[in-house]
């Protein structure tokens, strides 16, 4: 019964999405306030219906109702409760439902937080949001109904793909979708602006918080996915340039560009058309990512059971939204007024440079991802574009960008003084050079490139700190004044510095792992030892263990530091999930500071040993920690008073300040 309720709620949500699309759009055209006002309640009600539907499917999973085909295919009565719940989106149908849930969630957020928008803009934004929702709900009904029943109901389910039975599934897809789908709001704002034919700095101020929020989630989703792949797949890799990883990285790159161009538009009312185009492209890349993952046209580790009709349907959605919005853009963009002139050497100029590099990097990754499809369509040859291609094209594009990052926030708007900024970055450059020297001197076997990479990371981190110090006037004014100025800096300044600092942290982690990683493979028998990076690993024993829905052979290791002291134990295992008869490797990981010792078990050999693969991953945790710091930067920036909804609050605060001063 509850399953049918969920299905019915989804149908109602579809009908409501059509209303949300049509009525406010007509209202905005005819200037009818009553019709325009329908958008908000429709968006909120649509969200409530999809929530109901999502809960219905979750209930079917929790109760192990195997009469629902989707539950039977992806669940098992013995599966731990956490995975019963997360298993809802660990499959194609359920994850599409999550996609729509998050889409309607953003629709409802727009309805709730857009009270101060002009009525027509608000109506148009909600209308486009409704159209996207309707398209994806139709997709669910036509090709991927999660509520389909089977009769007779099987007694036991087929279990969830073991690789997905991990806490990562609880975090990674929801975060990633919040990012992917969050960009739909920017898209709707862009299309609404094109429909109205009017765009100004206020538009950028409304769009920026949504871009920031989506970007924060996408950053988290990508970082989490990377860490998950790192510890779950047992290969010790954290980024494979896999098509599906690229699919999430593409909107991140263009979303980062959008984040920066929106600043120019908001502050200087320049780059309007470009910002609009980026908003459209970023969500288009999100849709493209959805298409690549769902259609199975590319070989990838993210193998959903695929079905050609689904691919075709999403392709149709893709063509409709990308084609439609770009046509509208082509028709209307020229009528939008340009404004805000600036010199090439200026904050605006730096942000344009940022955009140039980021969009070119996006294009490179896009070409590398789609090239195999193109070649196969044209010549029939099958080729693969892997890490070597991306290392050769992406890295040379990103390194100059990273070098330029500390300059950007220090340049003045309109007309900047490059020599002056370079002078102020003297200390930063000195620090980075010192880091290069130290790396060359102390770290054995470090190549020049690795040392330069470490210098680059330090340059980024010190640059962020320098930015804050200079803006607070440390060194120029007295300590007390500097502290007061520091505290009084706008939150967006802190946000920028934090995000750029995080970028430096990630860079340091990546450079360290790529250049200083140590890998050892050996056949070991109990009692054997292996030394890697100063740690000695002793293989103790291998013993069977029974989990709730798997059996495994656990290899126990004890490891000692260079002085011979026992540090701890590492358990690494080969696991067999009984329902699917599917083996997985569960890596044993010991964390030392920001570095990790990563132990993976291979196959047993004929003579009673077992192949053991051990990695020393120096500073590997910094890769993801940097992502967390970037998210924190974004969040701080989001809390900036300027972006807070309800602008009058600022005025009240200003009035309140003298009172505070008096109280001191």
């Amino acid at each position, binding site marked *: 019964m509850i399953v049918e309720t969920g299905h019915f709620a989804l149908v109602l949500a579809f009908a409501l999405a059509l209303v949300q699309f049509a009525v406010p759009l007509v209202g905005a055209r005819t200037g009818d306030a009553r019709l325009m006002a329908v958008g908000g309640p429709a968006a909120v009600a649509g969200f409530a219906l999809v929530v109901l539907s999502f809960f219905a499917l979750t209930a079917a999973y929790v109760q192990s109702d195997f009469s629902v085909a989707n539950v039977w295919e992806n669940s098992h009565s013995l599966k731990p409760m956490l995975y019963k719940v997360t298993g809802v989106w660990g499959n194609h149908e359920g994850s599409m439902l999550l996609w729509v849930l998050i889409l309607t969630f953003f629709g409802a957020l727009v309805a709730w937080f857009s009270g101060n928008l002009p009525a027509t803009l608000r109506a148009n934004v909600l209308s486009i949001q409704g159209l996207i929702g309707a398209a994806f709900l139709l997709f669910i009904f036509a090709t991927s109904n999660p509520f389909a029943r089977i009769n007779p109901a099987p007694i036991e389910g087929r279990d969830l793909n073991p690789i997905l039975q991990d806490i990562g599934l609880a975090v990674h897809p929801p975060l990633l979708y919040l990012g992917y789908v969050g960009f739909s709001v920017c898209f709707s704002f862009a299309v609404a602006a094109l429909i109205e034919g009017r765009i100004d700095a206020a538009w950028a101020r409304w769009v920026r918080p949504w871009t920031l929020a989506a970007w924060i989630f996408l950053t988290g989703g990508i970082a989490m996915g990377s860490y998950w792949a790192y510890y779950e797949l047992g290969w010790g890799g954290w980024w494979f340039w896999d098509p599906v990883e690229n699919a999430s990285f593409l909107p991140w790159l263009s979303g980062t560009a959008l984040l920066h161009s929106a600043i120019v538009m908001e502050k200087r009312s320049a780059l309007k058309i470009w910002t609009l185009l980026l908003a459209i492209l970023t969500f288009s890349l999100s849709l493209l990512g959805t298409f690549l993952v769902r259609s199975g046209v590319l070989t990838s580790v993210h193998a959903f059971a695929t079905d050609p009709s689904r691919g075709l349907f999403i392709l149709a959605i893709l063509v409709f939204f990308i084609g439609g919005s770009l046509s509208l853009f082509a028709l209307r963009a020229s009528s939008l007024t340009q404004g805000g002139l600036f010199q090439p050497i200026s904050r605006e100029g730096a942000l344009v440079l940022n955009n140039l590099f980021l969009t070119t990097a996006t294009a490179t990754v896009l*070409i590398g991802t789609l090239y195999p499809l193109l070649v196969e369509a044209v010549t029939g040859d*099958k080729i693969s*574009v892997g890490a070597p291609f991306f290392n*050769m094209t992406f890295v040379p594009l990103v390194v100059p960008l990273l070098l330029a990052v500390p300059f950007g926030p220090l340049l003045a708007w309109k007309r900047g003084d490059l020599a002056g900024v370079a002078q102020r970055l003297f200390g930063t450059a000195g620090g980075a050079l010192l880091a290069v020297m130290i790396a060359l001197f102390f770290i054995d076997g470090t190549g020049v490139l690795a040392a330069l990479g470490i210098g680059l990371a330090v340059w980024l981190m010190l640059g962020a700190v320098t930015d804050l110090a200079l803006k607070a006037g440390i060194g120029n004014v007295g300590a007390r004044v500097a502290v007061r100025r520091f505290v009084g800096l706008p939150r967006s300044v802190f946000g920028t510095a934090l995000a750029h600092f995080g970028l430096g942290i990630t860079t340091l982690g990546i450079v360290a792992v790529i250049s200083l990683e140590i890998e050892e*493979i050996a056949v070991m028998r109990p009692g054997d030892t292996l030394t890697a990076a100063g740690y000695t690993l002793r293989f103790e024993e291998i013993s069977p263990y029974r989990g709730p829905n798997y059996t495994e052979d656990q290899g126990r290791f004890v490891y000692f530091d260079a002085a011979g002291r026992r540090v701890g134990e590492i358990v690494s295992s080969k696991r067999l999930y009984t329902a699917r008869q599917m083996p997985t490797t569960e890596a044993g990981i010991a964390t030392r500071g920001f570095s990790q010792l990563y132990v993976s078990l291979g196959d047993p050999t004929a003579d009673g040993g077992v*192949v053991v693969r051990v990695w020393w991953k120096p500073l590997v945790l910094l890769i993801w920690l940097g992502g967390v710091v970037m998210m924190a930067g974004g969040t701080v920036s989001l809390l900036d008073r300027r972006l807070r909804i309800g602008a009058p609050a600022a005025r009240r605060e200003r009035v309140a300040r003298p009172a505070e001063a008096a109280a001191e």
Partner: protein
Amino acid sequence: MTRKQKRLAVIGGAMVFLALASGLTLYALGQKTSYFYMPAELVAAQIEPGQRIRLGGLVEKGTVLRGEGQDISFSVTDQVGSVTVAYSGILPDLFREEQGVVTEGTLRQDGVFVADSVLAKHDENYMPKEVADGLKATGLWQDED
């Protein structure tokens, strides 16, 4: 410089940058991509030693030999041709006889394919796409359902 000249300089700079980036991309597409072959095609094809390619097919039954330590050799077949693959390292969890694999590496003078990576399917519903297409092309595809 006038406003117009300045704008031209900026646009010109951007163009030069884009040209460099496209040149690099095209060069990398030529150099850093690898072609995919099925065993029968590989036997017929002229491959320079040292050129990176990918070889896919089914792991032939009874050919998996574990040598010293982590050295492994096995044959990859498409039922028409068969190529011996030498690999050193840990095989993926789902590596089994008569299952689809994709290996990447170079062809040695003696015709043995030296692989530095071996990919197997990730769950029982999934066959590497190239292998599935290749088997369909040779008429040897067996639908599992």
